[in-house]
């Protein structure tokens, strides 16, 4: 065996070497932008030069053939330059307005929906799921594909009151982060413990420390050191499962899907908001999760019809009030919606502000 190579610890490369020359030319000198049509952006620089960007959706988990196909398009239309967005859309840039229409057509023809600009539903940010994760409750890629099939019109048009960011998470760690709509696994039963394996696999004090509600304690089971869960305290979050795989939290029946709405990272208008629970108990129904799709589509339809221009999901609900949200979406309101976590009192209505 030959000697191993020391890594070149080079960090991230300079982006300018990969950028379209028009972006390099006008770097930091942009005057304004507008959107000639859904899926297309126009950025105009101080010099008057305009750059057109055509944006299209991808499957994120791409085979090399798909990537090469995108490269072919970039070579044909954009002098071999391409970029991706935070939400895995692909963007093609050109200074030649006459190429835009052909580029849009080509992308659509190759199966990449053009859109995701302005007040549209963007691609759903997601995690690895059954394809690659070691603790997943569901398969993010599948949920996202199934949903985007249903929402493709909203991706390709700009008919929403404001942009809609949807996220998914395959466990309650909430890798997907905050979203206008978040589709997250919600376990409903305490972990099932394989006591024979705990001592060998798990660092017990560390596992105990991970529990947010102090529901785990050391125990001797069949003469072996193990862990036990106080099931009255347990909130079924699965925090103990990653550090201790014998504490299996995933269950084909009892690991459900919950829907959260109104999360927002931006400080635009309102301060950033956490998403709020609106539906739970939905079945983890692979391969197309129709029950989840139904709830998401209903929420989007109501938001689209009722919200005003520029209101993000959470802002719209703050204006119309949660009573009206539950009324319009026809979702049940239950005791589980009432926050009982630390500081939950802040989520009670301490005012005479009422919506009827």
């Amino acid at each position, binding site marked *: 065996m030959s000697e191993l190579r020391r890594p070149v610890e080079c960090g991230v490369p300079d982006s300018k070497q990969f950028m379209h020359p028009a972006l390099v030319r006008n770097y930091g000198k942009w005057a304004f932008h507008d959107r000639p049509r859904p899926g297309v952006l126009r950025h105009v620089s101080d010099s008057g030069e305009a750059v057109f960007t055509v944006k299209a959706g991808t499957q994120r988990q791409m085979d090399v053939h798909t990537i090469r196909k995108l490269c072919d398009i970039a070579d044909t239309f954009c002098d071999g330059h391409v970029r991706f967005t935070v939400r895995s859309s692909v963007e093609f840039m050109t200074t030649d307005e006459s190429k835009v229409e052909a580029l849009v057509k080509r992308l659509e023809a190759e199966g990449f929906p053009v859109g995701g600009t302005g007040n549209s539903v963007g691609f759903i940010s997601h995690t690895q799921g059954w394809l690659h994760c070691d603790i997943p409750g569901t398969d993010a890629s599948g949920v996202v594909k199934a949903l985007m099939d249903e929402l493709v019109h909203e991706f390709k048009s700009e008919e929403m009151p404001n942009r809609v960011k949807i996220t998914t998470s395959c466990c309650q760690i909430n890798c997907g982060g905050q979203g206008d709509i978040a589709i997250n696994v919600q376990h*409903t039963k305490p972990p099932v413990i394989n006591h024979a394996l705990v001592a060998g696999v798990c660092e017990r004090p560390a596992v105990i420390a991970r529990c947010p509600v102090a529901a785990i304690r050391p125990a001797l089971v069949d003469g072996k050191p193990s862990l036990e869960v106080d099931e009255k305290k347990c909130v079924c979050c699965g925090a103990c499962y990653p550090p201790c795989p014998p504490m299996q939290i995933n269950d084909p029946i009892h690991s459900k899907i919950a829907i959260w709405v109104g999360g927002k990272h931006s400080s635009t208008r309102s301060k950033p908001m956490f998403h709020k*629970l609106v539906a739970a108990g939905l079945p983890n129904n692979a391969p197309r999760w129709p029950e989840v799709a139904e709830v998401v589509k209903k929420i989007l339809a109501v938001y689209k019809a009722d919200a005003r221009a520029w209101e993000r999901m959470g802002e719209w609900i703050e204006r119309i009030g949660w009573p009206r949200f539950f009324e319009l979406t026809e979702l049940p*309101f239950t005791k*589980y*919606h*009432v926050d009982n976590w630390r500081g939950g009192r802040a989520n*009670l209505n*301490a005012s005479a502000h*009422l919506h009827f």
Partner: protein
Amino acid sequence: MSKKMPPTPMLDQLESGPWPSFVTGLKRLAEDGDKPSAKIMQGLLGQLEHSYQTRKGYWKGGTVGVFGYGAGVIARFSEQAAQFPESAEFHTLRIMPAPGFFYDTKTLRQMCDIWEEHGSGLIALHGQSGDIMFQGCRTEQVQPAWDKLNAMGFDMGGAGAGVRTAASCVGPARCEQACYDTLAAHRAIINDFTDDIHRPSLPYKMKFKFSGCANDCANATQRADVAILGTWKDDMQVDQKEVQAKVKQLGRKEFINQVIRMCPTQALGLNDDDTLDVDNKSCVRCMHCINVCTKALKPGKEKGICVLVGGKRTLKIGDLMGTVLIPFMKLETEEDFEKLVELAHNMLDFFADNALEHERTGEMIERIGLVNYLEGLGLELDVNMINQPRTNSYVRTDGWDEEARKWAERKTSAAE
């Protein structure tokens, strides 16, 4: 000037200035010739000056009462009795006024006469709880003073761990914004709770306050365990002609600034013809636009109350605002009032059974959770009770389907 007057160099500095001086009043009482009240006041002035000099208070509590009641007299014994013997006992009688603090002069004069005879002649109108505070009474004068006040048709207020004296805004007596009869509600509740006022046996105090609208002139939201606020369910009333007049008066830009832009839920738009576009579904009944445009805008016609629960001051867990318990109920018929009184009794009973010693209702709810409180009272969950649903996934939801079914049933039966 009587030779008994103690020197009060510090207090004297509070006699000057444009605002009415309580010191001048105290001194006038102390100079009232040979009246018993004068003696008490001479002692009191001496002790108060001593407090100002030393920056310390010198009263300690104790137990003084009237026959038949367990509360209502605030006992004060001086720790400086040797130095100021005349005011060694300086108790207060808490007497409940008519709701809205209405008086005729005959009543007030009679009260003055009684207090000059049996007390110090010092009366606070009113204490923070809403009582008439007859301040400064020797122990043996408490019962005779009370007998006379009671004979006038007045009753003693609350103190200690019981129901306390209530307070209400002026209400329909002189306000077009009142959405219910605050004075009648005040009287209906308090007069059904006299036993809990006069014989306190709760874990801690319990207060009711009544405001006719969200302006909350009675400061109920934070200052009462049970805040009863007026609101309405239908659309607000708009006189578009008067709106146009207001736009003209303020100017368009200022009208936008003062009315449109300040609506907390952006429920108002200004049409190009200077009429108002009201989105009543977004309106939260906050009263702002109605306050600005008193002639043009009014609450709706389907008026009623909402009930907030749990307001309190700092100790022990920090100040709390009340939170919504009943988003809306009518309060017009006798049955409506009975329903409200019944709710109040249920709230008191649950509090009596479940609160810890020295725990206010709001603290109890914080400890046991709103959902358990609602279950205890047999009240339905309502979305108006929350600011927003939970933002945290730490909850065990395996009863979801059952809860969803309950909600669907409620909705169906409500629709029927």
